[in-house]
């Protein structure tokens, strides 16, 4: 369970560029929730993710993950139990390392530092994981990942994020930079992996349809605040029409 209590983030405080990116946000995300998030540019959606991962400090407020306060925990400590995907596929993978090395990296923090990362056994494991994608990536384990297409890279990055199921999976417009076919594919796989391990997930998107058709809860951010929060029934009955009236798209 994720809980934010009165979280505020201010950029460039005390200057003319001062910007309240998160304004006293309080929010609880339950285990197993798949939350889609909408909001216009600059609404504070990515900042919301950044305070959860710790890449941006909060000005005030508290953050709890599974009952433990993580507000001031260093980023690399929290990351052990968090998974994150960015819009730009190149952000989530190391280009000069091979597909299997990238996958190996994803599980490395749970294993002995001086053990060989990718042995036969791991190769089999990665092949099996990647074959779920139906993209033929299981045959390209030795390819430097920078040589793959954006969609393929994002697919691997997704698998890297869930190979050890995280307490929370954060997807920041992770299909926005892909061609429509790849985007559809990645979204499909996203639903599969989330359902398989009942991963708690947050997905930022600009696509109203995607926000409606996926997940069991929908949040709308505006000016650093959560202005709308639809769950269960309420979300299911929501239409694109309704959404258009909720915020300036």
């Amino acid at each position: 369970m994720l809980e934010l209590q009165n979280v505020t983030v201010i950029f460039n405080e005390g200057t003319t560029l001062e910007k309240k990116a998160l304004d006293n946000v309080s929010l609880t995300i339950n285990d197993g929730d798949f939350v889609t998030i909408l909001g216009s540019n600059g609404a504070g959606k990515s900042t919301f993710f950044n305070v959860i991962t710790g890449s941006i400090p909060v000005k005030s407020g508290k953050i709890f993950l599974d009952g433990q306060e993580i507000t001031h925990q260093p980023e690399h400590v929290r990351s052990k139990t968090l998974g994150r995907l960015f819009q730009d596929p190149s952000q989530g993978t190391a280009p000069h390392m091979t597909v299997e090395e990238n996958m190996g990296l994803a599980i490395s923090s749970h294993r002995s530092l001086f053990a060989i990362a990718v042995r036969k056994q791991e190769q089999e494991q990665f092949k099996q994981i990647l074959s779920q994608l139906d993209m033929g990536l299981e045959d390209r384990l030795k390819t430097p990942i920078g040589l793959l297409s954006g969609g393929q890279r994002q697919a691997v990055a997704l698998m890297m994020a869930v190979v050890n199921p995280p307490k929370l999976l954060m997807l920041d417009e992770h299909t926005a930079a892909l061609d429509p076919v790849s985007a559809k594919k990645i979204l499909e796989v996203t639903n599969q992996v989330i359902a398989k391990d009942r991963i708690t997930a947050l997905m930022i998107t600009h696509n109203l349809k995607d926000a409606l058709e996926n997940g069991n809860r929908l949040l709308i951010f505006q000016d650093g605040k959560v202005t709308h929060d639809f769950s269960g029934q309420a979300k299911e009955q929501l239409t694109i029409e309704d959404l258009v009236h909720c915020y300036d798209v």
Partner: protein
Amino acid sequence: MSPTILMNALQLGLIFAVLSIGEYITVNIMDSPDLTVDGSFVSGAAVCAMMTLAGMPNLGLICSMLVGALCGCVTAFLQTKMKIQPLLAGILTMTGLYSINLRMMKNMPTVNLFIKGKPAPTLLSNEEFRIAILLIIVLVIVGLLYVFFKTNLGLMLRASGDNEVMVKSSSINVDSMKFLGLGLSNAFVGLSGALLAQFQGFADISGGTGMLVLGLAGIIIGEAILKPKNVGTGLIAAVLGAIIYRFLYTIALRLGFAASDMNLVSAVLVAITISIPHLQKLMKGAKNNA
């Protein structure tokens, strides 16, 4: 050229291969050249020289690595904990090391490795085995690093150089990786300095000048020849490049260049090689305009 000169070049090539391997870790793996080198090279030489004079030549080699690693960690500390730019951090360490190195050498600009008027015995004393010993050292280092870069820790180090943004948002501690990488790199730089001191029979306070560029030259030549696609071939390329560079160096000396001209030669070589992609682009542009 006489066989002796060629043998000499090969031996020096192997010694500088250790330097290039060290720099390979910062330049290629961490994607951030480290200027500590010109200082830590001498630190390794100085420590080893003093210990050799004290009758502990082999322990001296090991200590040269430890001292080198320590130098790298100082630079890592400046970078991570004091938020100093990587290049400046290296320069600061290098500058400070000059004084420390001089102290280690008891304020003598050169320390000759003579005990009671005779050359001090070292691992490299026996000319017959010298090449074999150097070859073994280089191969063991390449082998160990090759395996290391396949371990979980090795992958983490490589990833932090390959995509720092990703690693920052992962469970890998980027700061620790800087300590690891710079420490490891300078351990080999120090060892290279120590081997050179034992080979030449003296350590020189200004012997570090130009070493960064010299090591780089080896890496670059190796890359041009082998076009390495992975870490294993990258390491081999660095070794091969260092040896080839030493042969070119020897030829240049024969052609009448003075040893003191060679820093310029290395610098020009590295500058040209690095700018080749850009020059090619310019040429293409010129053609298209014509």
